[in-house]
């Protein structure tokens, strides 16, 4: 099914087109959500919600960009809204991180102590980086996540964010400066 057929089918609320869309784009949507949320359960839930939204608002798609660009845009906005609307989200995330540390402790019998230490250190480093990215202003965070985690080129990020290419370059530069400022004190 071509992209044009897919869009026509979605507007007509055709279930085959709907199924094809889910099969073709579910990895993209899930990975964008996971990139922002860093929680597989939330990413899974949000992926379902995004496809429901796409199904209900397919008639709003003007067709002046690629379907994948539209999906990137919806997934990014929904992920950031999810984080904003779930005020307790950070707390629960930290709590789950705490319990996941316990899980590592529970496996200590089967692993050498230095392996456990290495895992804990890696989790700590990952948390540092994620925290620093989360503290960036939204537009810098979107540009950085889409480029570094989703591996999108600047031109496509510009389309997703509906800004110019130099604006994306500037956002990326500022994101890197801010990340350096945030990470350096944490490491001292």
């Amino acid at each position: 099914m071509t992209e044009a057929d897919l869009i026509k089918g979605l507007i007509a609320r055709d279930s085959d087109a709907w199924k094809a869309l889910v099969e073709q784009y579910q990895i993209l949507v899930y990975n964008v959500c996971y990139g922002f949320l860093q929680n597989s359960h939330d990413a899974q839930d949000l992926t379902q919600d995004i496809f429901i939204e796409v199904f209900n608002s397919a008639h709003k798609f003007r067709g002046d960009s690629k379907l994948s660009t539209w999906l990137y845009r919806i997934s990014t906005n929904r992920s950031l809204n999810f984080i904003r609307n779930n005020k307790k989200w950070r707390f629960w995330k930290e709590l789950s991180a705490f319990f996941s540390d316990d899980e590592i402790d529970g496996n200590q019998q089967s692993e050498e102590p230095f392996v456990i230490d290495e895992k804990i250190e890696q989790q700590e480093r990952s948390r540092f980086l994620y925290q620093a990215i989360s503290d960036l202003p939204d537009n810098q965070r979107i540009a950085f996540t889409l480029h570094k985690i989703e591996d999108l080129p600047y031109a496509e990020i510009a389309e997703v964010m509906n800004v110019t290419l130099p604006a994306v370059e500037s956002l990326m530069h500022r994101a890197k400066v801010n990340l350096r400022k945030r990470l350096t004190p944490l490491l001292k």
Partner: protein
Amino acid sequence: MNCKTFEEQILDGIDINKDPSGVKALEEHLAQCSSCSAFHQVVQSGSESMVSGRRSMNDPELFDKIQHKMMDLEREDSSTRKPAVKIVRIGAPFSMAAASVLLGIWLGGQILTFTAQPAQETASVGTTPELYALDIHLNDESSEFIESYLSGN
């Protein structure tokens, strides 16, 4: 090159294939600079960890899950709409009853005002004859007689 430049390179993620000399310079710097080495570890292992949960295969049950969720949402919608319908049904007779009560109160008030008007005016009569003659408002024959008597004096 200073630490700032190396940190920028680390965040950029230098590509070995594109810039082998840059990688060599970075490796030499990391070997002697503990702060850049820590920075490198955080960025490298943090990025690896952040992409480790990504999916590369489809979830075969996702479409069914979405359909179930849509049905659940529709069910929730219809169950939340019911009370609204009830409110609309109850609302019309209730507002009519409230309107009748308010109308009754207003009519009662009008009747009371109309019957109490002469008494109020009598109570406002002054003590001096001039004032009495000016203030008084008469409605019946006896009052008219009193008025003409007072005007005559």
